[in-house]
């Protein structure tokens, strides 16, 4: 902390954002849990006539982790890319903290506290670590001139305190090519946390990670909720998602087919449901015996 940037007192707070304790809100957590931080209503999206999403409604509350699961082509990535402003929906509404947002762009979403962790796909390999941390949101002085010194120092602090990079071999100027898979994943997560996001979207964050790295990543997701922030966690692997999520939202062929609180459904039940949905497109709910058609379906 001692060599944090003194010329930018405001940045010290930001530099510590990697430490989730700094993200903890001062007001009681219960207030936040009631409030919907993010809501999608009847969102539809198609690409070249193919329906990627049909009438999808999801609500994410404060201090909540949603696990978004579904087979390949179920629409998981389309859904998160709509939430992050990368794609615009064909129809439907997006609300952030109760306010309707028209024409959500990536920049707007990031400014409103939605950050995504896309693994290495969103890292620029030949560029330095600091350039990757501040990609799209560089610290500037005036007229677009970069404050490279502050970005280097902040990155160094994040590396030390949040990523556990203590090696002298890694500096803020090291290109990403010099990092291992786990280190890259850490960089992608730290980048999202640094900007004090309220909603963090993790796209298959455990892919390609070793067992111990996966465990650390899952702990990280739990800490997001403990800090009063929300997350949407996408994974093929329901075993990973189940252990950290409050609710599992199951997508199939562009529709939400179920929304299951993990407190009420066992992992075995959900696995069976997923298998049934993958095979038949619908399922019989072991809880109430009703068919999916009578089921509320929507997550809102």
């Amino acid at each position, binding site marked *: 902390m001692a060599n944090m940037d003194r010329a930018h007192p405001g940045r010290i707070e930001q530099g510590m954002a990697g430490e989730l304790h700094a993200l903890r809100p001062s007001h009681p957590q219960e207030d936040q849990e009631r409030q919907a931080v993010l809501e999608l209503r009847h969102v539809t999206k198609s690409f070249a006539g193919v329906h990627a999403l049909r009438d999808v409604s999801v609500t994410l509350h404060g201090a909540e982790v949603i696990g978004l699961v579904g087979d390949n082509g179920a629409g998981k990535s389309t859904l998160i890319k709509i939430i992050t402003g990368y794609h615009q929906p064909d129809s439907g509404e997006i609300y952030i903290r109760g306010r309707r947002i028209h024409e959500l762009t990536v920049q707007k979403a990031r400014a409103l506290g939605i950050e995504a962790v896309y693994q290495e796909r969103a890292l*620029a390999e*030949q*560029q330095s670590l600091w350039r990757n941390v501040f990609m799209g949101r560089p610290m500037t002085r005036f007229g677009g*001139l970069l404050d490279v010194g502050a970005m280097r120092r902040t990155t160094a602090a994040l590396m030390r305190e949040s*990523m556990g990079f203590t090696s*002298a*071999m890694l500096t803020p100027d090291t290109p990403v090519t010099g990092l291992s898979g786990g280190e890259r994943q*850490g960089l992608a997560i*730290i980048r999202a946390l640094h900007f004090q996001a309220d909603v963090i979207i993790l796209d298959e964050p455990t892919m390609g990670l070793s067992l111990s790295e996966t465990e650390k990543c899952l*702990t990280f997701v739990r800490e997001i909720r403990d800090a009063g922030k929300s997350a949407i966690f996408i994974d093929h692997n329901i075993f990973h998602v189940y252990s950290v999520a409050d609710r599992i939202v199951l997508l199939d062929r562009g529709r939400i087919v179920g929304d299951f609180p993990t407190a009420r459904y066992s992992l075995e039940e959900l696995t069976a449901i997923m298998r049934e949905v993958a095979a038949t497109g619908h399922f019989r709910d072991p809880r109430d015996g009703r068919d999916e058609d009578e089921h509320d379906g929507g997550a809102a």
Partner: protein
Amino acid sequence: MTTLVHERPPATTAVARRNVRRFVTTWSSQLGITAAFVIVWLVFTVLAPETFLHSRIYVSYAQTVPYFGLTALALTMLIIAGDIDLSFPAVFALGLVGYVGVEHATGNVTLGLLTALAIGALAGLVNGVFVTLFGIPALVLTIGTQFLYRGLTLVLVNGQSYTLTETDGTIAGKVLVGRLLGVPMQFVWFAVLAIVTWILLYRHRLGHNAHVIGDNRQAAALMGIPITRTRIVLFVLTGVAAALAGAMNSFAVFNFYPGQGDGYLLPALAAVFVGGTSVFGGRGTVWGTFIGAFLIGGIEAGIVAVGLKEFYSQLIYGAIITAAITIHAVLQRRLAH
């Protein structure tokens, strides 16, 4: 506090060795091109001391190298962002069509010059808009627009040449091609704009975005970088640089002909690539381009001065360019491992 990754093993002497290697590889493209430049200069100086120990040839270089060097600076930024522009030699001439028209109508040289720059910007804008809006690869599009701009030039001036003696003694003339403390203004512009380019690339949002876009365009999109705007701005800057270089060239020789700029395409690109800028985008150096321009621009006169026939120049060009690019590629592969 959970950390996501294992701590690396503690620092050892191997680390220090790797740090040295990292330093060398990081700066290798700049060290390499500078060394090549010095070696070529030493060879020329030893073989033709009567030429290379007098200032006249340097004044000549200072006047002629910036014509393609200026465009090479803008191209460096454009290529780092993953695009390219092959139409710039035609923009040399097209800008001057605007100059000729406005100067003849108003008699105002400065206004004519500004028109030329504006036309350069417009030509760059057309390139940028077509490339980004229609998703045409820049290489393909600018092959088309280079014919378009050249053809437009020929039609507009009816294939004629113009003498530009009216620029002699004007402020615009002095600023573009006069002398500052004995140094040709062409060189002053080249040096100043090299510094400006360095600032834009390494200390400005524009260069930050250009690096990321050229490195991984999908990542840039996912992180909300304004890709279309950045790419268009870089095409516009290239157009302005080409028009400025064209005006400089014409003002210096008091002549404009519609084929102007022909022959600058390959030297400018060679300067960029010899300087270590990656053809795949994401990486490049302004110093490399600056020195590369003098290396490329210096060889021809040097070959004549040392007593070789001029037609050796292409052979030696080829050898130097191929060697430089191979060295960059090898160093880059070592850096990646």
